[in-house]
């Protein structure tokens, strides 16, 4: 369970560019929830995710993951609890290392690294099996360098890496935005399969309203650093894009003028 209490984040504090990206956020996400997050550019989606991941530290407030206060915990320590996939497919994997080596690095997330082998023989067998289920043809190329893979393959691999050692929470930051629609849909289907198989508590940022409605059991909409919509359960299942647009206008008092969200 994730509990965020009174969390704000200000950038460029004390300069003319001072900008409050998040304003007194209160949010509780229950274990097993799959939450999708939408909002325009600068709404604070990525800031929220980066605060949970520890890439950024908040101005104040509290972030609890299960019963652990992680508000000020550094990124590399918090990594033991979190699985993350980024928007840029290059960012989640080490291009000059093999597929197997990347998986082995991920298998050791949150563990103390010592002078044992970086990858054991028995692991390779296990990885081949896992990749075989992906059906991307990667199981035969275990030693291939990751930079030889396509963006979609890299994102699928990053997803495997994020869930290889079960995280308390999975954070997805527009992880299909850089892919072509067909590949993106495939990666999303894989995402949902992994999440439901492991019952992962998940937060997925997306700019695509249809995806936000289709996936997950709860939907948040952010606008100018606040959560303006929070829809779950039966209400979410009956939701349509038109409803979302209408609710946005009512809640924010402005038109949703973001082509990227409307057209995709």
């Amino acid at each position, binding site marked *: 369970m994730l509990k965020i209490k009174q969390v704000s984040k200000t950038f460029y504090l004390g300069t003319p560019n001072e900008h409050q990206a998040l304003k007194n956020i209160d949010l509780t996400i229950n274990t097993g929830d799959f939450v999708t997050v939408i909002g325009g550019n600068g709404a604070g989606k990525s800031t929220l995710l980066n605060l949970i*991941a520890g890439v950024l530290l908040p101005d104040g407030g509290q972030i609890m993951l299960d019963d652990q206060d992680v508000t000020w915990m*550094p*990124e*590399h*320590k918090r*990594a*033991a609890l*979190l699985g*993350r996939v*980024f928007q840029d497919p*290059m*960012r*989640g*994997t*080490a*291009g*000059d*290392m093999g597929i197997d*080596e990347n998986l*082995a*690095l*991920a298998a*050791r*997330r*949150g*563990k103390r*690294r*010592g*002078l*044992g*082998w*970086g*990858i054991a023989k028995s692991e390779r067998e296990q990885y081949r099996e896992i990749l075989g289920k992906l059906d991307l043809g990667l199981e035969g190329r275990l030693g291939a360098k990751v930079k030889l893979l396509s963006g979609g393959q890299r994102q699928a691999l990053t997803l495997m*890496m994020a869930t290889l050692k079960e995280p308390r929470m999975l954070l997805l930051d527009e992880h299909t935005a850089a892919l072509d629609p067909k590949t993106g849909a495939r990666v999303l289907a894989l995402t949902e399969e992994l999440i439901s198989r492991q019952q992962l508590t998940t937060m997925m940022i997306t700019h695509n309203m249809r995806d936000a409605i289709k996936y997950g059991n709860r939907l948040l909409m952010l606008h100018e650093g606040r959560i303006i919509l929070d829809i779950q359960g039966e209400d979410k299942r009956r939701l349509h894009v038109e409803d979302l647009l209408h609710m946005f206008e009512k809640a924010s008092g402005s038109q949703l003028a973001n082509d990227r969200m409307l057209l995709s």
Partner: protein
Amino acid sequence: MFWIIQSAVSLGILWGIMSLGVYITFRVLNFADLTVDGSFTLGGAVSAVLAARGVNPLLAVLIAMVGGMMAGLTTGLLNTKLRIPGLLASILTQIALYSINLRVMGSPNIPLLRVPTIFTWLGDIGFPTRWISMGVGLVFMAGVIALMYWFFGTEIGSAIRATGDNPHMIRALGVHTDTTIILGLVMGNALVALSGGLIAQQQGYGDIGMGTGAIVIGLAAIIIGEVLFTQRNFMFRLMAVIFGSIVYRIVITLVLRFGLKSTDLKLFTAVLVALALYLPVMRSEYRQFKQRRRKINA
């Protein structure tokens, strides 16, 4: 002629150990570390001073390595804790080391006349004189390559490689990149100082200027190795660095024999490295040019 080339090969191996140190920072960690010029001299200074005072020469070289580690640690702390960009942090350490090296030596030059060194030891036990440098170089080289090959296959070693490849990714996987950066710099400069310590004993003196341009020589060896020997696995890439260092020494020896003034050597090396660095760019530009031509003709 044979002995001239043979001695160039020996020097290439001894300097190749320094290039392996540069390989750790420059290629594995992706960190342009100019500490090298200072830590090479530091290694030579420590090794010469201790040997001249009657310390066991092998122990002197090991202590020289510890000196190199401290130099790498300094650059690492400047970079990770004070957030000074890597290039600048390492230049600061390098400049500071100039003063420190003079302090260590007490004078700009320490001769090792009639002082026992690792190299005179081997002569004393009857090792053929002309093969001593190569013998010492090969033993240390084999040890260093074996250790590097093992270490970069371990969990910590893999984390260092991943840090050089993609720091964002490895942080998200729970590695503190400050630690891995510092570790890589410490190891790289330990090897650089080891090489400096051996060279000082081999040439029979430690000198305040012996490390000047060492980083460029290290880069030359790495790039020549990469261009001439296509690399398959990690072991082969490490060997290629040594081969590159040897080729560099042979080229230097030959151009000096053909009349290049030894004072022009650094200019020559700089031009060589610049050309070698341009080579991959030139290749891809040429490929693109050919493709365009093919399209136009078709």
